[in-house]
C-alpha cells in the first residue's frame, strides 16, 4: 500500500513539471503587457522600464522560467505584482476559504444527491423517479450566477435572513461564517448534487440487477438493508471517484459563485490575477491547485483500496 502511494507520488512530479511549463508558456502567450497594466493610468515610460527590469520581463522566457522554478523549489512563489504581498501568504489566506466553501458544498451535494439518487433508482419509472430527474436536470441547467443573484434577492434583500455577501473566518465568528457561506455552498452544492444524483442512480440501477441483490432479497432480508448494505456499498466506487474529482475541481475555485457572493477564495484570486497580468499569482495558484487535484486523485485511489477488498487482495 505504502509503496503504491510512493509510486503515485513519484509519478506526480513529472506531471507537476509539465503543468508548470504549461502555465508559464500559456501565460506568456496571453496578449497584453503586464508592465502597462501595472504602471497605472499615466504609463510613465520610466516606470514601465523599472517594472520590466524588476520582474525580469525583458529576459528570455527560458530564463524567466528557470528563475521562477529555482525560487519555487526554495519555497518562494514570488510576490504579487499588484499588491506586493507574497504569493505564498495569499494562497495561505485563500486556501482555508476555498476548502471551507468546497467542504460545505460537498456536504450539501451528498445530503441531497445520494439519497435522491438511491431513491430514484429504487423507484425507477415511478413519479418519484421522474420528479427527481427533472429536479436534477434543473440543478445542472440553472446557471450558478443566476441562482446566486436570485437567492441574494430573495433571502437577503426580501427576507433579510442572511448577509447578502462577504466572508467571515469560522475561527473568528462561526455563526457569521456559516451564514455567509451557506448560500454560495448551496448554489455550488445543488449543481454537484445533480451530477451525483445521476451517477448514484445509474450505479445503483446496475447493482440492483446483480445476482447477489436478488439472493439477499431471496434470503428474506429487509429491503432497506438490501439497498443500503448490499447494493449501495457496491455502487459506491464510481461515486467516490466522482466526488474526489468534483472536490478537486471545487478547490480550484468556483469563479462565478465566488464573484457573486464576494467570497475571497481561489477563484476570485486567479481571475483578478489573470486580468491584471499578475503572473506570480496566476502561476502560484495554478501550481497549488494542480497539486491539490493530483492529491485528490490519489486519495480517491486509496479510498478504492479501503472500500474494495478485491483490490486490496490484488496488491
Amino acid at each position, binding site marked *: 500500500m505504502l509503496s503504491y502511494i510512493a509510486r503515485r507520488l513519484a509519478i506526480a512530479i513529472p506531471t507537476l513539471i509539465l503543468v508548470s511549463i504549461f502555465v508559464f508558456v500559456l501565460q506568456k502567450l496571453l496578449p497584453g503587457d503586464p508592465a*502597462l497594466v501595472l504602471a497605472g*493610468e499615466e504609463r510613465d515610460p520610466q*516606470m514601465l522600464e523599472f517594472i520590466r527590469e524588476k520582474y525580469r520581463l525583458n529576459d528570455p522566457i527560458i530564463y524567466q522560467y528557470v528563475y521562477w522554478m529555482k525560487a519555487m523549489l526554495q519555497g518562494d512563489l514570488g510576490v504579487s505584482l499588484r499588491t506586493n504581498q507574497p504569493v505564498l501568504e495569499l494562497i495561505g*489566506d485563500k486556501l482555508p476559504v476555498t476548502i471551507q466553501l468546497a467542504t460545505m458544498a460537498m456536504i450539501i451535494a451528498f445530503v441531497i444527491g445520494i439519497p435522491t439518487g438511491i431513491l430514484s433508482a429504487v423507484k425507477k419509472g415511478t413519479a418519484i423517479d421522474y420528479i427527481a430527474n427533472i429536479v436534477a436536470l434543473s440543478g445542472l441547467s440553472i446557471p450558478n450566477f443566476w441562482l446566486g443573484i436570485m437567492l441574494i434577492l430573495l433571502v*437577503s434583500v426580501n427576507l433579510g435572513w442572511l448577509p447578502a455577501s462577504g*466572508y467571515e473566518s469560522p475561527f473568528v465568528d462561526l455563526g457569521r461564517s456559516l451564514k455567509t457561506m451557506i448560500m454560495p455552498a448551496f448554489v455550488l452544492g445543488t449543481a454537484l448534487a445533480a451530477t451525483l444524483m445521476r451517477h448514484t442512480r445509474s450505479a445503483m440501477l446496475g447493482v440492483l440487477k446483480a445476482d447477489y441483490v436478488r439472493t439477499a432479497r431471496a434470503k428474506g432480508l429487509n429491503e432497506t438493508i438490501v439497498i443500503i448494505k448490499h447494493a449501495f456499498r457496491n455502487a459506491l466506487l464510481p461515486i467516490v471517484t466522482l466526488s474526489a474529482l468534483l472536490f478537486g475541481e471545487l478547490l480550484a475555485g468556483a469563479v462565478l459563485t465566488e464573484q457573486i457572493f*464576494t467570497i475571497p477564495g481561489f477563484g476570485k484570486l486567479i481571475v483578478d490575477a489573470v486580468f491584471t497580468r499578475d503572473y506570480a499569482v496566476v502561476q502560484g495558484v495554478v501550481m497549488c491547485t494542480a497539486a491539490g487535484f493530483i492529491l485528490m486523485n490519489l486519495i480517491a485511489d486509496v479510498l478504492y483500496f479501503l472500500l474494495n477488498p478485491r483490490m486490496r487482495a490484488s496488491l
Partner: protein
Amino acid sequence: MRKKLLAALLLSASTIITPALAADLRIGLQEDPDVLDPDQSRTFVGRIVYASLCDKLVDITPDLELIPQLATGWSWSDDGLTLTMDLREGATFHDGTPFDAEAVKANIDRSQNMPESRRKSEVKSIESVSVTGPLQVQFKLKNPDATLLAQFADRSGMMLSPTATAAVGTDFGAAPVCSGPFKFVERIQQDRIVLEKFAEYWNADAIHFDKVTFLPIPDTTVRLANVRSGDLDMLERLAATDAASVKADANLQYEEAVSLGYQGITVNVNNGPKGDNPFGNDAKIRQAFSLSLDRDAINQVVFEGAFAPGNQPFPPTSPWYDKDYPIEARDVEKAKALLKEAGYDSLDVEVQVANNPVQTQMMQVVQSMAAEAGFNVKLKSMEFASLLADQSAGEYQASQVGWSGRVDPDGNIHQFMTCKGGINDSKVCIPEVDKLLDEARVSTDNAVRKAKYDEARAILIKELPIIYLYHPTWIWTLSSKLEGFTPYPDGMIRLENVKLK
C-alpha cells in the same frame, strides 16, 4: 431526531444575525484596491480608501477650488518658481510622529526618488524642498508649474509617516501609517479593508464613525443588494441602469457628481503603419464620424441619461470647458457630405472596445449611428489588458479610451495631445498645440491658462485625435439612515460630517 437537530441548528443560526453597530460604517467598492501605498498605488479605487486614511497637503471643494488640509496657507513667488507653504499645527501621524516641515520634505523625497514611486512625473518640477521653519516649507521649482498644487490635492500630496516609511520602505502598503481621520487596522485582500477612528485627528469632531470597513464587491447587482439588505451603508459607482430603481426606493439615497474624466474614441493618427489609413490621415473624415453621432441619444440609451454627453476633455459643467464649441447636434447629411468631400461614399473603420457589456453596448450604438453616414464600423472586442497593449503599440485604427480625470485641466489634455505626451496613443503632433499646452501649464493665472486651452481647443476640435463622447457620473447609493454626505467630482468619499440620522 436528526431533523430536529437540523431545525435547531438552522434556528440558532438565524438568531445570531448581528445588526451592524451604530458607529460602524460599511462601504461597498467596485474593485479591490492595489497596494495601499500612495507613492506606489495606481488605482482609482485605492484613492477612495486614502480619502479616509491619508490627509493631503491641500484638498478640493466640490467646485474644484483648492482649500487647506495639512497645509493651512500658501503663496507663490512672483516668478512662479517658489511655493511657500504653512503647515497645520497639532497634526499627528497615526503612529504618534508629529506632522511638520521635515515630514513634508521626507515625503517629497520619497515620491521623487523611490524607484517604485509612481508619482515621479507629478512632482518632477520640484527642484528642492527646504525647511524654513518647524511648520513652513519652501518648494523651489525647476520651472513654473501651475499643476503642482492640484497634484498636492491627490496622492502626491498625501503625507505618510516618515518614521514608518524609514522603517519598512517599500512594504509600507502592508500597514500604511498616515495622518487622516481613520487609521489602518487590517486588510484581507479581495475581502475587506478595516479602518478605525484616529482619536488625535486634528478635525476629529467632524468624524462620526468609530470604524469604517471597505468591502470590494465587483458585481453591481450584488453591491446594491447589500445596501438594500442593510449589509452595507453606502456604495460607490452604482450602475447607471439601476439609478431609477434607487431613486424610487425610500430606504435609499441617490447622490451623483459629474466626474472629471471622459470616455471617447482615440484614433491612430500617426502611431506606426496602422495609422496610415484614411480615418487616421484625414481630419475631415473624423469630423464626419463625430457629426454622425448623437451623444445625447447615446447617454439616454446606454446610461439612462445619468451621464453627461461631452465633446471636450472637460465636462460641460467644468470652468475649463470651452463654451464656443458646444456639443454639435447630429447631422447625418453634413457628415455624408464631408465624407464625400474626402473622396469616400463609405469607409471601413475598426474600433477596439473593452469586452464588458456596457462599453460594448455603447460602441454598438456608435456603430449603428455612424453607419447611417456611411461608416462600416467593425467592433473588435478585446480584454482590457490586450486593448491597452495594442493601443500603446499603435496596433489599432481606433480604440475606446477612458480617463478618470484630474483636478487640474493639464492632467486631462497635456499628456494626450502633446507630441511627446506619455499617453499620446494617437501620436498626434501639432507644434502649435504643444506650445499652447506648455504655456498653459506654467501660468498661475487661470484666465491666461483658460485662453491657452481655448486656443488649443480650436485646433484640436478640427483634428479630433480623440473623439470625446461622454463624461461618466459618479453615482453613490446611501442608506437613508445616513446624512451629511457631499458628492465630489473626483469620485472620492469624504467622511467629514457624514453621520447617522
